[in-house]
């Protein structure tokens, strides 16, 4: 029980300490307003090109994609902020299990991502006048939580690359753009060349978008179990890889003394 409480305490405190997007004005501007402009732009685009066909699905998919702010950029701070603060060595040399630690830090970003996505959905519905069937909301919540969990896992892997490369700004923007491209939020996967759509299967959010469109446009939940188990598995693999990478970075630091150089 104590460990559970500690887990959640760390989740909250680390969000404050490392991410610190506390000022309401800044939060609204950066985490909400900016992603919304992206969503509105793409929704208008697909509305025009597809003449309104499947609009609900596209609006919802673009709303889901808004989680990228947290899943990529927010997750980066989980690993990188410590270096900026100078607290990395102390954290790494403390007794707590690092896998549990970094997962605890990821939780607020998963929640934040979901919050942004749902807010986007609300705005999308209001602005574009689309209707989302009420019975799809619960499955949607489930799909989105799993997809965002998975996206955060990939974000953590990227964050752990920060031990090796300084070009994190570049990499994170590439990942964010790649997710937008590969997820198919604005077109069906069939317009992509097959090698690209195959590649997309290894990325998060692709299945989430597919399911979102199916449920919102047609109420079709037949693929739910299969796709979501795959996405959940993918997310777990991502997190596992990132923990291994972080542990390896810690080991390398002890052997080479590289953390010392920072």
């Amino acid at each position: 029980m104590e460990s559970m409480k500690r887990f959640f305490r760390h989740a909250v405190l680390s969000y404050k300490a490392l991410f610190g997007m506390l000022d309401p004005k800044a939060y609204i501007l950066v985490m909400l307003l900016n992603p919304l402009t992206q969503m509105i732009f793409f929704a208008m685009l697909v509305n025009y090109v597809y003449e309104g066909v499947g609009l609900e699905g596209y609006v919802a998919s673009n709303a889901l994609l808004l989680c990228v702010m947290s899943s990529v950029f927010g997750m980066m701070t989980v690993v990188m902020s410590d270096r900026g603060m100078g607290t990395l060595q102390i954290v790494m040399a403390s007794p707590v299990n690092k896998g549990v630690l970094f997962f605890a830090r990821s939780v607020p970003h998963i929640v934040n991502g979901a919050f942004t996505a749902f807010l986007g959905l609300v705005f999308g519905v209001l602005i574009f006048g689309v209707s989302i069937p009420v019975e799809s909301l619960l499955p949607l919540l489930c799909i989105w939580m799993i997809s965002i969990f998975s996206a955060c896992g990939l974000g953590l892997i990227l964050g752990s690359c920060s031990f090796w490369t300084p070009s994190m700004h570049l990499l994170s923007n590439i990942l964010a753009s790649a997710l937008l491209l590969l997820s198919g939020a604005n077109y069906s996967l069939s317009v992509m060349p097959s090698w690209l759509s195959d590649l997309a299967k290894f990325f998060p959010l692709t299945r989430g978008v597919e399911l979102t469109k199916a449920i919102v446009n047609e109420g079709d939940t037949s693929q739910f179990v299969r796709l979501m188990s795959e996405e959940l598995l993918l997310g777990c693999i991502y997190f596992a890889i990132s923990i291994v990478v972080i542990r390896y970075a810690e080991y390398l630091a002890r052997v080479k003394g590289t953390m010392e150089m920072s």
Partner: protein
Amino acid sequence: MRGNLQAFFKTIIVQMKLSIARPMFQFVIWISPFFYATITYFVYGGQSPEKIFHYVVLGSGFMGLWTSIVYSSASDINRERFYGTLENIFDAPVSFAYIIMGKIVGNTIWGFISMLLSFLYLRFVFNLEYPIVNPLLIGSAFLVVVIAISVFAFVMALVFTLSKQAEVLMNFIEYPIFLICGFLFPITILPTWLQPISAILPPTWAIELLRVVTNNASTSAQIVQAILVLIGITVIYVVIAFVAYGAVDRKARMDGKLGVY
């Protein structure tokens, strides 16, 4: 005058080197055009070649151009303000205006390079048809576009110099401009209350000019009209620039508040 011009050209070169050294800018110039172009192409997929050219090719090219300008001019002012050098530059013997303009032109050139990259990418990877246009015509059109966009960016830079608040908005006007100026779709689909705003923004007319010029069905009258409209709006912005510059001068030298971060 000579000193100013010399500084102007020097600033262009220096700015180009400085900007491209920054990883974020590298992303904006070398990498994001491919994402924009690919995503846009997938959306427009089976549409007519003309539509594809106007919206996918020109549109995504403009997205890259705009991002590079916004990203650099405002963040440069911010950086100078942050390092406390804003006042120094302002008080330097060479006119501030030439320095800012030099920076803007430098970044605009990079923006056009990224636009060219995206044109080549779309042409060769997706085998798109590009209309054949009189080189003189397209060349002059591009020249007018460069000037128009630079003037607009200059005005924006002045506004950012004047107000820290306005600068915060820099981060958030990427997608809104794509939307309002009709890069990827015609402005006619925008709500009526938004259309007047589109009309007063130079990028709207800039991309419209390029569309008219590359449309083989355009009449000379239409082309001339498009050029004149863009020149006209550019002139208006030049006037705004003078006024804004006066305000910046006042704020700097009379209020002494230019450096307030």
